[in-house]
């Protein structure tokens, strides 16, 4: 059974079809959230929240975008809302702790951490998300704008300025 059949059945209230749909997209969603949050626990929590939202709103999915893109849109907005609710300092502290833990895990596996993830983590999530969506997932500026509820021009400038900042910080780190 292909994804379109599952979506059609899920919209009619078929629990099994909706479960299969969620299972098929689980890994994709968690990996996306891991890349934009750079925080394993937050990524897992948001994956759960996104799935709950998807169960609630499946009737509203109109098939204009791919199902996975629709899930990314939900997840992106949940993450933006969550970050707005949290205090800036608390977010920074949590991010630092998560990065330290990830670095420690990577070191334990005898692998080398990459500076680009430190630089990416330093960026505000409203800049980090469009960069990941554009350059890793290959979405257009227009699609990203629709996902995040901002203008296409704003996405362009965030991606361009974000990359510029990343380049500068990477150069500084390499220079040390």
């Amino acid at each position, binding site marked *: 059974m292909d994804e379109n059949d599952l979506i059609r059945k899920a919209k009619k209230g078929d629990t099994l079809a909706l479960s299969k749909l969620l299972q098929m997209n689980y890994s994709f969603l968690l990996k996306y959230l891991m890349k934009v949050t750079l925080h394993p626990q937050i990524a897992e929590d948001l994956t759960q929240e996104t799935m709950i939202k998807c169960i609630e709103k499946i009737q509203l999915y109109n098939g204009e975008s791919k199902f996975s893109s629709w899930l990314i849109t939900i997840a992106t907005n949940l993450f933006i809302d969550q970050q707005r609710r949290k205090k800036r300092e608390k977010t920074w502290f949590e991010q630092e702790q998560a990065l330290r833990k990830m670095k420690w895990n990577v070191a334990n596996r005898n692998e080398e951490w*990459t500076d680009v993830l430190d630089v990416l983590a330093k960026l505000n999530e409203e800049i980090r998300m469009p960069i*990941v969506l554009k350059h890793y997932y290959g979405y257009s500026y227009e699609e990203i704008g629709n996902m995040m509820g901002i203008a296409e021009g704003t996405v362009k400038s965030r991606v361009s300025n974000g990359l510029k900042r990343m*380049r500068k910080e990477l150069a500084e780190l390499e220079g040390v």
Partner: protein
Amino acid sequence: MKEYDSKNRVDDEDELTVKQLLDGLERLDQWHSVSTPNLQWFQQNVEAEKKRMRTKQKKDLLAFITVAVFVLSVVMTVVYQQPVVFLYIQLVGVLLLPLAFKNLERRSAVNGLKQTK
């Protein structure tokens, strides 16, 4: 020409940054391999969520009916016990109607202005 060269240089540098970024994100995927739960786990979650939604809908409907019955009984009481008070309320409502429309028009004009900006 100089401008063209400098633009190309920036594009190349951007490309290098993007390459580093993709490499970093690929590694992140490798370090955090995802184990997808089995179908039963998803089914349980979907069923639990649907049950919660049904309960919430029932509660909301009950609250709506309760409030509606309360408002209706107050109105009926006023109509039968104090018809004059009821007529006064109706009159005040009719007098406030143009004010409400004016307010609505002003709001939509402000919104329209914001959108054209």
